[in-house]
C-alpha cells in the first residue's frame, strides 16, 4: 500500500522540492507552503522513494492533503 506525506497546514504550494523517483530521508523538505504570509517547509515524517507527486505549485491545499505518495 502506498504511503503519503501530507500538508501540515492550510496554504498554497509555493515550491515542490521532490519529483517522481527521488529518494528522501526523515526530515527532508518535501515542499514549501505559503501560508499566513510565511514560507512553511513540509518535512518528511518518514523516508522512501517518491512514487507520485500529487499536487502542483500554486495548488491550494488543506491540512492533511496528500502531497506525495511514496514507498
Amino acid at each position, binding site marked *: 500500500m502506498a504511503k503519503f506525506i501530507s500538508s*501540515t*497546514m*492550510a496554504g498554497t504550494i509555493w515550491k515542490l522540492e521532490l519529483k517522481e523517483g527521488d529518494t528522501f530521508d526523515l526530515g527532508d523538505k518535501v515542499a514549501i507552503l505559503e*501560508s*499566513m*504570509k*510565511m*514560507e*512553511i*517547509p513540509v518535512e518528511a515524517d518518514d523516508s522512501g522513494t517518491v512514487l507520485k507527486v500529487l499536487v502542483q505549485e500554486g495548488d491550494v491545499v*488543506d*491540512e492533511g492533503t496528500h502531497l506525495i505518495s511514496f514507498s
Partner: protein
Amino acid sequence: MTHEEGLAKLEAKRQSALAGGQGKVRDKHIEAGKLLVRQRLEILFDDGFDFEDGLLAGSERDLPGDGIVTVIGKVNGRDVAVVANDMTVKAGTWGPQALLKFNRMQELALETGIPLLYLVDSAGARIDQQKELFLGRNGWGNIWYNQVQISGRVPQVCVLFGPSPAGAAYVPGLCDLVIMVDKQASAYLGSPRMAKMTIFEDVTEEQMGGARLHCMFSGLGDVLVKNDAEGIEKAKQFLSYLPLNWTENAPSAQATEPNAEAVGKIDTVVPINQNVPYDVHQLIDGLIDEGSFFEVKELYAKEMTVGMARLGGQPVGIVANNSKHKGGVIFSDTSDKAARFIWLCNAYNVPLLFLQDVSGYMIGSSVEKSGIIRHGAKLLSAVCESSVPRICVLVRKAYGGGYLAMSGAPTHPDAMLALPTALPALVGPEAAVNAIHYNRIMELPEEERADFVKQKRDEFAKDIDVYRAAADSFAAEDVLPASRLRDDLIKRFRIYSRRDAKVINRRSAVHPV
C-alpha cells in the same frame, strides 16, 4: 517467643517485603529491560531514602507492600516524597492498603510542602475489589481528589514506566509533568481488548496509547525517554528548577555562560526577511546558561518551543514561537501547550520569558470548526492571569492577537523589549491594504489597481517599524541587540522579582477550555 525469635520474625518479614513479588511476573519485567521498583528508587535518591511507610502492609497476605512503595528521601539534597508501584506484586494494582499508602503520602507531601513524584507502573485499580473501593468516600477516587487539592501547592511529577490504564490514566493526566519511557509506557481509558469488543477497533497497545502517541499527538506526555534510568534522571533535572512548594522561590544554581558558538551568531540568527523561518533554539542557546534548557513537549505542537532554563543561574520559563515549524503560527494545540506551561511556571514562582515571532493565530474554516477561539483563549487567559515576573521580547513578527497571546504590552508584562528585527503591527501590509482600501481598489480600473495597492502597502509598511511603533511611543521599554539581551534580562528579572505577586482575590476565574 523470645526476643531473638521476635527480631528474627520481623527481619524475615521485612526482607520478604523488600524482595517484592517473585516468579514469572518478575522475570518478565526484568526481561523487558525494566528496572525493579527498588532499583528505580536507588537511582532516584542521593543516598538511599530516609524512611518508608507501609513496608509491611499486605505482608499477612503475601502481597509485599500491597504492590506499592511509599518513601521520602533526598534528591539533589532536597526532600521529595515518592509513590512507586511495584509491578511484580499483583501487576502493581491498587488494593485497599495500596490506596491508604498512596493517599497518606499525598497528604504528607502537601502538609510538609515537598514535591511528590509518582513512579507509575500499574495495571490500575484491583477490579476484584471494586465493591469496597469504587463507590464510597474512601474509594480510589481519592487519589485524583488529592491530586487536584495538591495542584499548584507542591510539584507533582509522573514518570510512566509501564501501563496506567483506565482511571489510572488520570494520574499522569493530573500531574504537572509527565515523563514516558518509549515502548514501555502506555495510557488509555479503554484497552485494545475492550475497544475490540465494544467499538470493533483493532489496534495495538502502542497505537492505542503508547509513549510516542502521547508525546507527539495527544500532548499527555511531556518528555519521551529511552529507558527507566533516563526517565528518573529527567525527573530529577526537572525538579531542580522548581521550589519545594509554591511559597518558596525557585532555586538558583551556579551560573554558567551561554554556548559560545550560539553567542557568536546571536545578532544575525534571526532572518531579516520576515517570511523566512528559522529555529528559535539557536536564539535560546545564545541567551541561557549553557546546557540548562529542559524542553517540555518537544515533540508536540513544535511551532511553540517551551521549557525551563537558567539565566545567570536563576530559573526561567521560556515560551517562544518557532517559525521552523508551521511558521510559528498558533493553533489550538499550540495554545494548549503554552498555556499549561505558563500555569506551571506561575504556580511555582518561575519567571516567564516570551520570545515573540508570530504572524498570529491560524485562520480558516477548519480551525474555526475545531475551536481556535475557545482554545486560543487559554493562552491569553494564562498570560493575563500570571503573576510572576514576565518579560516579552519582540524578536520579529508581532502581529494581531498573536502579539497579545505572546505577552504583548497590553497584557501588562513587567517589560517589553524589542530586537532591531522586530515588526509589530495589528496586521501586515498586504492584509491591511486589502481591508482598508478594498472598496477603493474594486472601483479602480483593473490596470491601475496593482500600482495603487503597491503604493498603499509601501506606505503602510513604513509604520511597521520597531522605532516608529515600539520605541518612539514607549510601547517597548527598550530596543537592543540580541547580544545585549541576556545581560539585560538577568538585571531586569532581578529587579522585577522584588515586586509582590499580583494575586486576585476571588474563588476562581472561569477558565476558557
